[in-house]
């Protein structure tokens, strides 16, 4: 199959995911509610943190991370529970399936962040951000997050206790994203260089995408 028709297949998968999500909506609703609940709980517990950008950066990423962990597995869990994975495997290659889902996860995370990030800045306070730097860190961080967890979602969907297991397995993989994301967000507030964090996130995402491509063929064999 050519790269062109794979792209078409991924696009079809992305559209299918979007329509399914839009009609059922429980995934996005649950993730948004969870994220907002976490954010308000944190904000309520610590109050405003205008002068502690280090804590602020960490809290922002913790909220993002947990919102992602609570929701990123659900595209594959839905395929497993609805027993629709057979259909999917009959029409598309494993790599196409995983990368199609990855695109959807990126879209999902972007939607989540559009709500969470402004709300977090509003509730927690903090100096005005340097937007290009902040958006750069968030964009690459999101890419890193999605590339590290999509294959994992496909993997844990095949095990018992999927949701909880996914979060537990994702955490060690995401320590790098957490460390680099926090230091990047912090640096943009402190006026430091964000380039090291961006480089690290980019390299990590690239490594994870490569691993995903290589490993996808081993995902489903029964």
């Amino acid at each position, binding site marked *: *199959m050519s790269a062109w*028709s794979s792209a*078409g*297949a991924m*696009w*079809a*998968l992305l*559209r*299918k995911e979007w*329509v*399914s999500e839009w*009609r*059922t909506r429980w995934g996005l609703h649950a993730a948004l509610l969870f994220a907002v609940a976490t954010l308000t709980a944190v904000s309520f517990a610590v109050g405003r943190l205008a002068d502690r950008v280090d804590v602020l950066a960490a809290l922002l990423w913790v909220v993002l991370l947990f919102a992602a962990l609570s929701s990123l597995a659900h595209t594959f869990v839905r395929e497993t529970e*609805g*027993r*629709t994975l*057979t*259909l*999917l*495997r*009959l*029409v*598309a*290659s494993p790599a*196409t399936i995983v990368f199609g889902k990855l695109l959807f996860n990126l879209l999902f995370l972007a939607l989540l962040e559009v709500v969470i990030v402004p709300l977090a800045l509003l509730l927690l306070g903090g100096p005005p951000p340097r937007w290009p730097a902040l958006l750069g860190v968030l964009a690459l961080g999101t890419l890193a997050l999605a590339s590290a967890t999509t294959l994992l979602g496909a993997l844990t969907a095949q095990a018992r206790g999927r949701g909880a297991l996914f979060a537990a397995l994702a955490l060690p993989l995401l320590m790098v994203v957490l460390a680099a994301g926090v230091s990047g967000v912090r640096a943009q507030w402190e006026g430091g260089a964000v380039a090291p964090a961006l480089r690290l996130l980019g390299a990590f995402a690239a490594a994870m995408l490569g691993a995903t491509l290589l490993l996808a063929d081993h995902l*489903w*064999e*029964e």
Partner: protein
Amino acid sequence: MSAAAGALAVAADATRIEARALSHRYGPRVGLAPVVFAWQGPGVVAVTGANGAGKSTLLRILAGLLKPSHGELHLTRGGRALDAAQRRHAIGFASPELAFYPELSALENLSFAAAAAGAHHPAALARAALERVQLAARGHDRVAALSSGLVQRLRLAFALLHAPALVLLDEPGSHLDDEGRALLGGLVADAAGTALVVIATNDEREWRLARERVELRGRDVGPAA
């Protein structure tokens, strides 16, 4: 161990499956005891056998859904071996376990399948497939609203969606009423003109559709009773 071979003249694009000592274990449990066969299309082959003999396992292996633990399987078309992508393209598969997206309509399900498989006009292909199983009138209903008999027709439409060269049907008549069974007979006869159709069933009405019947007599779990 005996072989059942369809000795027909080799057409230029004939589909051929050959299995040598093909078997599968689910962990220590035997899913399919070793089988040997060579089938060639076009035509219909029926696979029968007691529950647990490995009919579904065999079909899942042929469809590329299950990796056999032992033995060899050769899938060729016009003498050339098929890679994974060509194999997906060549195969149409329907089984009772095949499920559709309940929140999408019948038409959307098939369009998605065709688009994901790389078809150029997925919607047109999907409509034609629905017409073939006489489901066009219900095409815009969500799958969640279809009865089990209608879902079975949708499965047949899915299996025949892209005019595959190898059609694998696991209990194709389940949930079908008399009208549906008549439809199935017609669909199998049509497909058999160009494709190799493999039907796994214990229903006489279904294996009567085949030119050749193969029985799996593998052992089930545990010592012989």
